[in-house]
């Protein structure tokens, strides 16, 4: 009704100057009109400008006088021409009427209020207050003196009400008849076919959508997946690494790591109470390893110490996945030689103090190539291929020491963000003292490299505390928020 009236009026007229007047003209409550205006304005069918107005309205007391007359008149009429005793008069009228009426009637010099007797001073009175109030009620404020208004205000019979109305013009979406607005397309719309007439409520695109409920993969394992892909694309085969418990023999001795080496110290390695020792090792190979440690062979002088079997039998949690590599290479040597490219990404353990960048366990990425006639150039080449797929194409290599590789190279990459060279991994060529006792042919060389999975992931996802990435203190929201891993994609 109200909406049709507004839109209909604006169709023929340029403007509704005052919604208040408009409301009274058409006989609709202004509040109703205001609600419609707000809605029309929201959909920009009309443009609305505020008009602030003030208006005198009757208080409840004032309203009551428009019916019963002012108290002074009521009191005056209660006094008969012959007069009346105070007691009698008080019985005849309401106490409030008596009280207010007395003071006003005295002020107007209408009544004589004697000690015992009340009598009229004038014979007739006009109820001016009632007339004024009626006028104000009828909106004829202009016909009332400012003095009268002030007097009525003072008596709290009228009050000033601020009152808002609007001036209206056509808005950018003006139409003589508003289409139904919808917030969504429903099955009913389709069934009724009224979707054609739908107008959609403006959607708020500056707010985010409703949060989705779904599952999430762990960021570190997403990176692992991409690294697996990269290795597979480079023709590397995954090694089975599901054995955390390892013997010192495969973890150290087979790698030509001497038994007094500091890495074999209990400060760095988790040795086991249960199961404390290994029961089975390939005896003839153990014999060759013992000999190469003690007195050399295969062109080596050896380390020249008494190699102890008990030390090799000690069980530990593998300190590197190279323990698995040594088992794999040993198996490879037991068959007619075929070149191999292996990789693994799995958990390793170090008995180290835990801090922002170190945990007692982390994931090691390892790659190795085993073939005849490999050179250091092949190692550098494969490292460039591998790391450039990780987005690190500026590499350089620093000579380093590692007991089972010779030469050993630390891999540095230039970090464009940090503007410096950062170490990203270790690499080298396995020593003949490691390979030849296994039984690999003399011209077979093995090049290998390793790095942690956590470090590139932390750089990738901007995480500086490793405990925020991995372990039970991780914030689940972080896991849910993390983006896809694009390693190896571009």
């Amino acid at each position: 009704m109200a909406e049709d009236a507004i839109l209909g009026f604006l169709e023929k007229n340029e403007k509704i100057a005052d919604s208040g007047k408009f409301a009274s003209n058409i006989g609709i409550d202004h509040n109703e009109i205001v609600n419609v205006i707000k809605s029309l304005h929201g959909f920009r069918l009309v443009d609305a400008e505020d008009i602030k107005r003030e208006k005198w309205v009757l208080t409840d007391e004032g309203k009551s006088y428009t019916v019963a007359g002012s108290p002074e008149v009521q009191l005056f009429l209660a006094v008969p021409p012959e007069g009346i005793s105070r007691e009698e008069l008080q019985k005849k009228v309401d106490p409030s009427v008596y009280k207010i009426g007395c003071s006003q009637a005295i002020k107007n010099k209408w009544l004589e209020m004697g000690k015992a007797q009340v009598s009229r001073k004038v014979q007739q009175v006009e109820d001016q207050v009632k007339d004024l109030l009626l006028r104000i009620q009828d909106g004829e404020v202009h016909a009332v003196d400012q003095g009268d208004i002030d007097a009525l205000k003072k008596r709290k019979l009228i009050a000033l009400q601020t009152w808002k109305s609007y001036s209206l013009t056509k808005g950018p979406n003006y139409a003589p008849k508003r289409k139904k607005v919808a917030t969504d397309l429903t099955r009913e719309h389709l069934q009724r076919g009224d979707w054609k007439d739908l107008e959609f409520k403006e959607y708020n695109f500056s707010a985010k959508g409703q949060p989705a409920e779904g599952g999430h993969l762990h960021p570190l394992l997403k990176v692992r997946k991409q690294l697996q892909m990269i290795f597979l694309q480079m023709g590397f085969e995954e090694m089975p690494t599901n054995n955390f418990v390892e013997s010192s023999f495969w973890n150290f001795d087979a790698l030509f790591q001497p038994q007094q080496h500091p890495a074999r110290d209990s400060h760095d390695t988790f040795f086991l109470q249960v199961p404390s020792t290994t029961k089975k090792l390939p005896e003839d190979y153990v014999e060759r390893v013992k000999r190469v440690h003690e007195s050399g062979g295969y062109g080596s002088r050896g380390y020249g110490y008494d190699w102890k079997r008990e030390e090799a039998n000690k069980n530990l949690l593998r300190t590197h996945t190279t323990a698995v590599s040594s088992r794999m290479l040993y198996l490879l040597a037991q068959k007619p030689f075929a070149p191999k490219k292996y990789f693994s990404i799995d958990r390793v353990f170090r008995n180290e103090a835990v801090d922002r960048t170190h945990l007692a366990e982390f994931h090691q990425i390892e790659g190795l190539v085993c073939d005849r006639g490999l050179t250091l150039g092949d190692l550098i080449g494969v490292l460039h291929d591998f790391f450039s797929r990780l987005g690190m194409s500026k590499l350089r290599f620093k000579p380093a020491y590692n007991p089972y590789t010779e030469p050993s190279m630390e891999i540095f990459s230039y970090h464009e963000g940090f503007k410096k060279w950062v170490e990203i991994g270790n690499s080298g060529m396995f020593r003949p003292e490691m390979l030849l006792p296994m039984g690999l042919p003399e011209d077979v060389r093995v090049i290998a490299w390793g790095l942690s999975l956590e470090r590139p992931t932390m750089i990738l996802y901007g995480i500086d505390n490793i405990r925020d990435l991995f372990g039970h203190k991780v914030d689940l929201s972080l896991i849910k928020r993390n983006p896809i891993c694009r390693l190896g994609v571009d």
Partner: protein
Amino acid sequence: MPTVSVGRDRLFEALGRTYTQEEFEELCFDFGVELDDVTTEKAVIRKEKHLEEEAGEDEEVIYKIEVPANRYDLLCLEGLAQALRIFMGLDEIPKYIVSNIPSESLLKMHVKPETSLIRPYVVCAVLRGVTFDEARYNSFIDLQDRLHQNICRRRTLVAIGTHDLDAIEGPFTYEALPPTDINFVPLKQVKSFRADELMEFYKTDLKLKKFLHIIEKSPVFPVIYDRNRTVLSLPPIINGAHSAISLQTKNVFIECTATDLTKAKIVLNIMVTMFSVYCERKFHVEPVEVVYSDGKSNVLPDLSVFNLEVPLSYITGSIGVSLDLNQVSSLLNKMQLQAERSVSVDGRSIVVSVPPTRSDVLHACDVMEDVAIAYGFNKIPKRKPVSLKPVALNQISDLIRLEIAMNGFTEVLTWILCSYKENFSMLNRKDDKSTAVIIGNPRSTDFEIVRTSLMSGILKTVGHNKDHPKPIKIFEVGDISVLDETKDVGAKNQRQLAALYCGANSGFELIHCLVDRIMEVVGTPFVPIGDDKGYYIRRSNEPEFLPGRQASIVFRGKHIGTFGIVHPEVLSNFDIPDPCSFVELNIESFLWS
């Protein structure tokens, strides 16, 4: 690929023995054709007419044999039988001979210049002293049909006409005339038609109407006359009735009119080589001279061999077998290719004589293929390219991880090391000393033991994420270690899956549902208790779970895990104020589907 229907018994007769169907299929397979269907003439008719009758005993069995699309010489029984006989070493390669006829005695075909407006080429030949019987006659007609269908591209490129030479008289003329000027009695009709009327007449002929468009719109129609103006044919539509061949025909005149001369020659060669076997002088073909209006002339068919020199190394190198020249020669002989040691260069090449029947041989690679076929594809030693094998357990783990995430669970990755308490007493469990790998020199209590289940890590994660909005749905797939006497080091890893729900209520049914979903994705049916073909759920009594709301998961008769509402004491041990349900199971048994 084209299919050739041949009578089984006739084929076996031509091959000189009978075969079981399996034996014959084997022979076909090795040679590179395929026995597509076995049926009978009557069955074909029944099928066409949608009749349901029982097959009689005496019906002739038809073999439908699929042949390579470029081997036109295999499109009839004669060619197929010959190829197979030679393949089996029963026959020598035939030598086709163009009879030496003095030029003045040659039959002549004069070509009028107007033919260039519609169908410019014609090639002809004569087969003398042919003996037809019903089967040969039918084969002769069928071959024309198949050639028309295949290489002739439904007569657009080439059309074949065959005539009883004794009913006509050369020289012949190949002309192109307005349809209204051509009148003759067409094959299978008794009255004479004018060519334009004939076209109208054939519009309702199911077989012929599809060829009409080839000449219909042309102002002139191609037509062949003999010296007495008898119409031999109105190519590519129909022959004249007058020269129709019959079982009694002895001398056959073959003409091929064409828009493609090369194909016309191939088609003519196939026709004459296939059926010269029935000539009085086997494999002899009489040539016909085609004389064009500009005076140029051709004597055809050309049945000479095409010589191709192929290095031995190319053949053996491409196939991957080592063969000497003699072996290659004898293999090629089986494929109807005569081969001799080349006299040129170092003598490590062969010269292959490609007969007129083998228009498919274009290059040395075609020769090489025939050597490989004759050698036997399935005898060639394998050479495998380098390839990689996945670690099955990791692949299965990744696939299951994705499925769990798709079920709305978020993956966590917790530590393998934990305190002794966390692994046992905090889970209400007692250590029976039979499972756990224990570290001898831990730096702190956090690293006393290798976890024997994923439960403590998951509960610790919930305990540290109290502020996270509920429900929390998390999972982990990872390894635990357990003692194992059979392993060299005395312990082994085991791949576990754990998932937890934490919310205002326990979510027990949700975790139950996840168990069902996991079993569904590994393809295992839900079975009654005691059945070991699938999985079932059995009440359990584990201390870490609430009694009455926990169960054991039994997969193929083996207990692989447990799920339940986490015991309130355990929750309190891990400082978790909300109810949780948890499942953990070993996924290694899913490795074998």
